C-alpha cells in the first residue's frame, strides 16, 4: 500500500469573477490540512466553509452528482480540463493526486460560447441549444413499434453506446485549443446515425446541429485530439469523422436542408 501523508497543505490560485460583466482576477488562497482522500469538490467545499467563517465570499462552482455522470462539475485544474487524471470528472479527482506544498491553478472552462457566470461557473446552455436543433429522433410518445421489431447488430449497438456515453460537461470545448464543440456534437450525431431508428432524420440532424454549433460561437475542429484525451468518458474522434461523413453526405447527396 502506498504510504501517503493523511493531509496536505496547498495554495489555490483560483479565478474569481463576481459576474459575467465584471472583470475577474486570480486570488491565492492558502489551505491547510486537506485530507488526501477528499475529492477535489470536497476540497473546495472545505475551503468554502473556511472562507465563510472568515466572512469572505465562497468560491462559486457547479457540481451535482459527485460521481462523474451528471456532467455538471468542471474546471481547468493546472492547465487540464477536469484536472490531471485521465477519464475522470473533477468530482472523481482526488486530492492524493497532489503533493504537499503544491500551488494549484483553478480556472473556469474558457470559450466564447461558455460565458463565465461567476468564479468557476460557466453558462453551457449553448450545448442545449445544439441539442434542440436536432439531437433527437422524432418519435412521439405512443406510436413506437415493439422494441425487437428492428434488430440492431451488437457491434452497432455498442458503438452507439460509446458515442452516447457523453455527459455534456463541455470539457472537450474547454480542452480544445480552438474551443470547438465537435466532439460533443459528433457524439449525438454518431449515436443516432448508427441506429436504424435515427436514419430517417440523419441528414437534417447533421446539418442543423452543425449550423447551430457554428452560430453559438464555437471554434472549428483542427484535429488536435485534445478533446478525446480530456473527455471523462473517453469519446473517440472517430465520432467526429463520422459526423464529417454524415455532414458531407447530407450536404451533397440528400434533399434535407
Amino acid at each position, binding site marked *: 500500500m502506498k504510504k501517503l501523508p493523511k493531509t496536505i497543505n496547498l495554495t489555490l490560485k483560483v479565478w474569481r469573477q463576481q459576474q459575467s460583466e465584471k472583470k475577474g482576477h486570480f486570488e491565492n488562497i492558502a489551505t491547510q490540512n486537506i485530507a488526501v482522500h477528499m475529492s477535489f469538490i470536497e476540497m473546495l467545499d472545505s475551503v468554502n466553509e473556511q472562507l465563510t467563517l472568515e466572512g469572505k465570499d465562497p468560491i462559486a462552482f457547479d457540481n451535482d452528482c459527485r460521481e462523474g*455522470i451528471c456532467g455538471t462539475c468542471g474546471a481547468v485544474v493546472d492547465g487540464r480540463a477536469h484536472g490531471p487524471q485521465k477519464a475522470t470528472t473533477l468530482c472523481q479527482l482526488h486530492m492524493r493526486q497532489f503533493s504537499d506544498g503544491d500551488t494549484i491553478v483553478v480556472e473556469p472552462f474558457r470559450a466564447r460560447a461558455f460565458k463565465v*457566470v461567476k468564479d468557476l461557473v460557466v453558462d453551457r446552455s449553448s450545448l442545449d441549444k445544439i441539442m434542440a436543433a436536432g439531437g433527437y429522433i422524432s418519435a412521439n410518445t405512443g406510436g*413506437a413499434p415493439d422494441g425487437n421489431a428492428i434488430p440492431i447488430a451488437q457491434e452497432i449497438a455498442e458503438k452507439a453506446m460509446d458515442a452516447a456515453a457523453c455527459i455534456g460537461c463541455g470539457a472537450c470545448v474547454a480542452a480544445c485549443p480552438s474551443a470547438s464543440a465537435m466532439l460533443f456534437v459528433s457524439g449525438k450525431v454518431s449515436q443516432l446515425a448508427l441506429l436504424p431508428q*435515427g436514419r430517417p432524420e440523419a441528414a437534417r440532424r447533421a446539418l442543423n446541429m452543425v449550423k447551430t454549433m457554428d452560430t453559438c460561437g464555437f471554434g472549428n475542429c483542427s484535429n488536435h485530439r485534445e478533446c478525446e484525451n480530456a473527455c471523462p468518458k473517453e469519446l473517440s474522434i472517430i465520432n467526429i469523422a463520422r459526423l464529417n461523413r454524415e455532414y458531407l453526405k447530407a450536404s451533397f447527396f440528400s434533399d434535407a436542408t
Partner: protein
Amino acid sequence: MQFDAHIPAGPLTDKWDLHRFELKLVSPANKRKFEIIVVGTGLAGASASASLAELGYYVKTFCIQDSPRRAHSIAAQGGINAAKNYTNEGDSIWRLFYDTIKGGDYRSREANVYRLAQLSNNIIDQCVAQGVPFARDYGGLLANRSFGGSQVSRTFYARGQTGQQLLLGAYSALMRQVGAGMVTLMPRREMMDLVLINGQARGIVTRNLINGELESHAADAVVLCTGGYGNVYYLSTNAESSNVGAGFRAYRQGAMFANPCFTQIHPTCIPHTGDHQSKLTLMSESLRNDGRVWVPHNSGDIRDPQDIPEEDRDYYLEQKYPSFGNLVPRDVASRAAKAQCDSGKGVGLTRCAVYLDFADAIRRDGRETIAKKYGNLFDMYELISDDSPYEKPMMIYPASHYTMGGLWVDYNLMSTIPGLFVLGEANFSDHGANRLGASALMQGLADGYFIVPYTIGGYFAGTTLSPASSDHAAFKDSTLAARERINRLKSINGKRTVDNFARELGRVMWDYCGMSRDEQGLARALTLIQELRAEFWENVLVPGLDKDYNKSLEKAGRLADSLDFAEIMIYDALNRSESCGGHFRQESQTEEGEAKRDDENFSHVSIWEFTGSDQEPKMHKEPLEFENVELSQRSYK
C-alpha cells in the same frame, strides 16, 4: 377528509383501459389553450414535458440544474424492468405486478402497481424508438439480465448507465419540443412556492439561481417531478441539489404527504471517511453475487484484512441466512451490516464498514473473469478509496438511496390540491415500503410518458378554470413570503455554516430514523431536531448576496425545509409501530430478528396534513385493500 384514490371499478387487468375510456378528452384545438408547468427534468419531468407538448399543450419546464440533462435520474446504474418475457422464462405483466407489490411489502395500491407493470412494455418500445442504445445479443435483439427480488431476467440495460441513457432519451424528446417552441425551458430555477388560486394549483414562484430574482409563473396545472428526499440524511447517494423543497412547499400549501418514513437504504456503498465527505457512492448490488461479506470476530481487531486468518473472520450473512447467504434483500443486508458495526466489529477508518471480499471468487474463477464482470466497479472503487479490490477486500456500508414516500396522489397522479400532479420519486404511489431494483426508472417514465398525458386532460376537461395571470395577488403574497424568508436567513449572521447544520441533521436522522428505529430513539430525534432547528434560525451563517449566484443561500433554504420535513418523517416512523420493507421498528420483529408486519393495524397509507408551522401535523389514512394478492411474511433463511 375523504381519501378517495379514484381507483376505477372493474377487474384489475381492465382498470386502466376502462379509465382511459372514461376520462374526458380535450380536443386538439383546445389543448393549445392550456399551459402546464413542469418542475424537474428527471425521467418523470422530461418525459411528461415532452409528451404533454407533443399533445399540443403549452409547457413551461423548470430545472434546478444548468441543463435538464443533469437531473439525478442520470446516475441510475442497473436497469429498467419490463414484462416483455423476451427470455421465455414465463414472465408476465401479472408476475411483474406481483413481484413489485410483494417487494414493497404490501404497502402499495394494487391498481397503481398493476398499471405500472402494464406500461413497462410500452416504455421499452418508446425508448428504443428514441435511440436508447440498450444492450443487445448477437442476433441484434434486446438483452436482459436478472436483478434482485425476482426470479426472471426482465431487466433491460445500457451498460452500467441505464439511467443516463433513458434520461438522455427523455431529454432529447424534451429538447425537440423546446426546438419546436412548445416547451419553454427555465433552467437554474428553484421553486420557492406553489401558488393556489381558488384552491387550485395555478402556478409557482421561482428563484433565478443566477441573479436571485424571484419570478412568478402562472399556468393551468402544475406537475411536480422533483425527486426524493434522501438528502435529509446529508450523506446519501443522491446528488447535491436533490432536495425535498418543492414537495415540502406544496405540502405547506395543502398537498398531503404520504408515508414519509419509507426510505430505502442501499447496502453496498463506499463508506464515508470523515467529516469532509459530501456523498456516498453506490457500488452495484451485483457485487454480492461473488463477494463474501465479513467482519473480524473480535471487535477492535485492527490488523490488515489479509492478515486476519479464516478462523478470526465472521461471515455473518452466510451464518445467519444459510439459504440466501450474501444475496439477502437490500434492507436485510443493510441492517445486518449496521448490527455488526454497532457491536464494534466495524472496520476501516471510522469503524463503520464491513468487508466485501472477492479473494475466494478470484481464486475460483481467476482474476480475469472477475475483472470482466466487475472491472469498471473495481476501478471506480479504487479511484475513490485508493485500494484495489483485487488485492484487498472492499469496504462497504449502507447509505440512503431512495425514498418511497412522497406527496400523496390518487390514481390520476393528482395530489390533494386540484391541478397539482406529482410524478416519479416525488409521489408515494407504487413502491410501498420498499422498492425493487430497476423499478424506479420504470415508474418515472410510466408516470411521465403514459399516465399524466391522459389524466391531466381528464382534469382540464372536467374542471372550470378561471383566468389567472402572474399579476394575481396570490403570486405577490408568495413572492413576499419567499423574500422575507431569504432576508431572514441572510440577516441571522451567526457562527455555524449551513453544511455544518446539514451534517448534524443528517447524523440525527441516520442514527434514529435510519436503518432501524425505535420509539425511544425517535422521540429523542424529535427533540434533537427541534433544538437544531431553533439553533439554525439563530446561528446560521449565510455569506454572499441575495441577488447573486449564491449556493450557500440555496442550501440554507433547502436545509430549513429539511429541518421541518425531518419532523414529519419522525412522526410517521413513530406512528407506524410495525416493521415493513425499509421501515424497521425494533419493537416489531420476529424471534429471529426479522421485520414483522402488522397487517391488521397498518395496512394503510399514512397521510400527513400540514396544520401550521411548529404544529404537529395531522394524520389521515387511506386503507389498502388487497383483492388479488395474498399477504405473506417474507423469509430469507
